[in-house]
């Protein structure tokens, strides 16, 4: 098992379930990341997606009944890679957004970190 290389990266976390957000934060901190967030509300997530300098993001698809897609769009426009996390399947993605990566809940933390590290490596975000 190789350690996902995320050290020194700024990673934004959007997750409305507090306990899950805390777990993601701890795991990212362990991997040497600086966590931006977590944001539990769509409005905060969209503002952060537009303004925060981040290298990547973990986005829970469903935020208390609201879809996180506006935040994902904002990140995509800025060229920031992100990984969607969801209890729903891929079916939920808009037809023209099938290229977005989704990790199903319940996830293995290492899968999330590795996929995210991969995305960040392939598409370094402009600061």
């Amino acid at each position, binding site marked *: 098992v190789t350690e996902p290389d995320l050290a020194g990266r700024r990673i934004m976390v959007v997750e409305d*379930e*507090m*306990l*899950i*957000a*805390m*777990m993601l934060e*701890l795991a990212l901190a362990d991997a040497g990341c600086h966590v931006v967030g*977590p944001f*539990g509300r769509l409005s905060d997530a969209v503002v952060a997606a537009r303004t925060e300098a981040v290298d990547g993001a973990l986005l829970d698809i*469903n935020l*208390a009944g609201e879809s996180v897609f506006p935040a994902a769009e904002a990140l995509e426009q800025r060229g920031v890679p992100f990984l969607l996390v*969801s*209890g*729903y399947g891929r079916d939920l993605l808009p037809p023209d957004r099938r290229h977005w990566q989704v990790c*199903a*809940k*319940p*996830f293995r*933390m290492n899968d999330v970190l590795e996929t995210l590290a991969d995305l960040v490596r392939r598409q370094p975000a402009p600061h």
Partner: protein
Amino acid sequence: MRIVPYRAADDTVDGALITFVDVTSMVQAERHHRLLVDELNHRVRNMLTVVISLATQTLRGARSLDDFSSAFLGRLHALAGTYAVLTRDNWQPVPLRDVLQEELRPHFTAEPTNLVLDGPLALLEPRAALAVGMTVHELVTNAHKYGALASPNGRVTVRWRLEGTAEHTTLVWSWQERGGPPVVPPTRHGFGSTLIERTVSHELNGLVAFDYRPEGLTVTLSFPFAAQGPTSTARPSVAPA
């Protein structure tokens, strides 16, 4: 749509009979069913992730297997307790008092003389109920280990009130321990207190204050309270004050 031949008395086909059946309601029912199944799947997966989160984080702070086991199972049962209150009431807003009683019941006798619950009827929507349930569980567990309930004369008083206007109501809730060993402010910030702080800020959008007086710990929570009365069809008569 159904098409059947129309036969005359001599059995010759004399036309066709076309019947239209409106299947809208069947399609709607099917769609509704699909939605329910999707939502159930989503909730189960989310809940499993929450359980994994609890296990992961409880494990970090655990000093031994016994320590982990009681802390982890205690938290799971606390979650299950509030779920029981919520499912009993069909996932409608539930009285704060019911949530408190459910979470405190395992820690007190049937007619406790060392516990006071005092406050008006206040209905909590499910998210807030789960957050309050988790907070109370952490407090009562802590009281047993280090606080008032670690001594035979210790007692706990829980009071709450609603403040502000009808549009902007704040629920102020306090947990006060007395009669325990002299309180020493904790030196390390454990998962329990982090959990309380994060629950209050993240889930309740509120504030929490810990007051470590020598005579006993007092914890005060305040959070925006959305009145849940008139719109709730299951409880038409219980609009909170």
